[in-house]
């Protein structure tokens, strides 16, 4: 019994010390949140958005993507890193990454890869967000799907008005991994805008309504997808 008290006492002291040191060495939480938009409007599943250039509308049912090697930088120096996260824009529990940031230096930019790198792609089966049950893995040909963007638009009339962009591919010459770096104004609450209109306006949806394997098209569209990301004002 005595030893139990002793352990409890030690525990309390430790916790207190940790809390004290947290404020002392400048530990703070830095959150990165991904928010879907269509132009200036909030992106909601199934909602139709006017598509100005073609006098048509687009609705999105799925927008999921991997971000990997997510780094917080201070004047070009990496301060903190997270290996990977599967973001689902339509699941508010899956849009946020938290860092326990441990230095005083300001976060001046955030850098991440859109997708999963080749090392991870050849390393066998993954766990957590990388588990193939997440539906972001190609079965017939090894490799992660870096991004799934699906929905409907009359632009895709030859494909029952549906589009399915499964963008991936890790091996040359069809490596579709994108690296994105965004400037941040020392914030603990980084809001990343994911504007799907930036993707659609660059993509010829009439001729390409679906991409389901590593290919020239997948690489091209992955480049368009990288243009969706910006920091919210």
């Amino acid at each position, binding site marked *: 019994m005595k030893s139990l008290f002793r352990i409890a006492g030690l525990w309390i002291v430790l916790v207190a010390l940790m809390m004290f040191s947290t404020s002392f060495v400048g530990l703070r939480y830095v959150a990165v949140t991904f928010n879907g938009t269509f132009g200036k409007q909030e992106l909601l599943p199934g909602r139709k958005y006017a598509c100005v250039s073609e006098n048509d509308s687009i609705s999105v049912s799925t927008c999921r993507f991997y971000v990997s090697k997510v780094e917080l930088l201070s004047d070009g120096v990496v301060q903190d890193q997270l290996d990977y996260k599967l973001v689902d824009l339509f699941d508010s529990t899956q849009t946020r990454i938290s860092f326990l940031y441990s230095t005083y230096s300001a976060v001046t930019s955030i850098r991440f890869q859109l997708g999963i790198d080749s090392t991870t792609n050849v390393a066998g*089966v993954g766990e957590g967000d990388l*588990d193939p*049950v997440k539906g972001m893995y190609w079965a*017939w*040909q090894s490799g992660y799907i870096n991004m799934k963007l699906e929905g409907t638009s009359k632009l895709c009339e030859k494909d029952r008005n549906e589009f399915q962009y499964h963008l991936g591919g890790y091996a040359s010459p069809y490596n579709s991994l994108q690296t994105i770096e965004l400037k941040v104004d020392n914030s603990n609450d980084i809001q990343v805008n994911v504007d799907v209109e930036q993707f659609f306006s660059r993509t010829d949806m009439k001729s390409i309504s679906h991409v389901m394997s590593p290919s020239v098209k997948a690489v091209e569209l992955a480049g368009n997808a990288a243009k969706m990301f910006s920091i919210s004002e």
Partner: protein
Amino acid sequence: MKKRFPVLALLSLALLGFRSIPSLVGWPDYFPEPVYNFEKNPVNASETELGRKLFYDPVLSLDSSTSCASCHSPYNSFAHVDHKLSHGIYDSIGKRNAPALFNLAWQPSFMWDGAVNNIEVQPLAPISNHSEMNESIEHVVMKLQRSDVYPLLFFKAFGDSVITGHNVLMALAQFQLTLVSKSSKYDSVMDHSATFTAQEQNGYTLFRKNCSTCHAEPLFSTYGFASNGLAVDTFLRDYGRFAVTHNAKDSFLFKIPSLRNVSYTYPYMHDGRFATLYQVVNYYSDGLRPSTYISPPLKNRLLFSASEKVDLVAFLLTLSDKNFIFNKEFGPPRREKSVVPGKN
């Protein structure tokens, strides 16, 4: 408190000893180092046993009709004898011959076209293929989680009764990695406990001269890709590795299969077009036609005489590993009461 340390230490040592049994995967000195990283994922008994149960369980298919072993029978060195093309649920027929499974730890890629890059993710291909198991790994996990037996087996193997896709695939990989074929007559000759007959020796000499560039010893494959000039089946229209790389240079290339256990794995070739070993030898000897896509070692016909063909086949029979195909550790697990809910 002090007294507990030795007990704990002993217990953890015992547990460690139980969890990693290196002899589960052993290989002779003359084998090269495996490609698979056993240090990262050591093979252990409980995961292997679970993988074996999964391998023989049709629960992996949509209608619980087809298991891995349906097309990969242990008695045929895990190939599908007498079936040109793989079979699946609803009597569907696939596009390629089900390959034999052994020495998988030495293979850098899987499937006839090398579309799969790691043994751990290979089962995803047949599980999801519409003419094989037509299932999804998500649903397999759900079915296993609902069963009476699997949550406990996963707990024993992984310390967690919550089943994940990762753990299903790791267990299947572990079982398949233990399938090492290393005790054929050829192996006995290599370790000097047996000798070839004069005929086998002659066949071996012919083999080394004509075949071993692609079917390199001691695994009897480089596991690279090659075209042996077979005319394209106009029904299947299978262009091999081209489908994976979209590179014209890879047209008609298929993975070089190992010739170990070749007497058990008929019919032969990626589409099972040859029923016997003699047909295969005849093709290489007399049937090769000049083609743009044929791989360089086969630019010229091999031209074996009738007696040379017999000798060559005699040598190929020394690659049959009876201990492997009759190994009880690799066969179906003992039947237990298994309650698996129907499809949902």
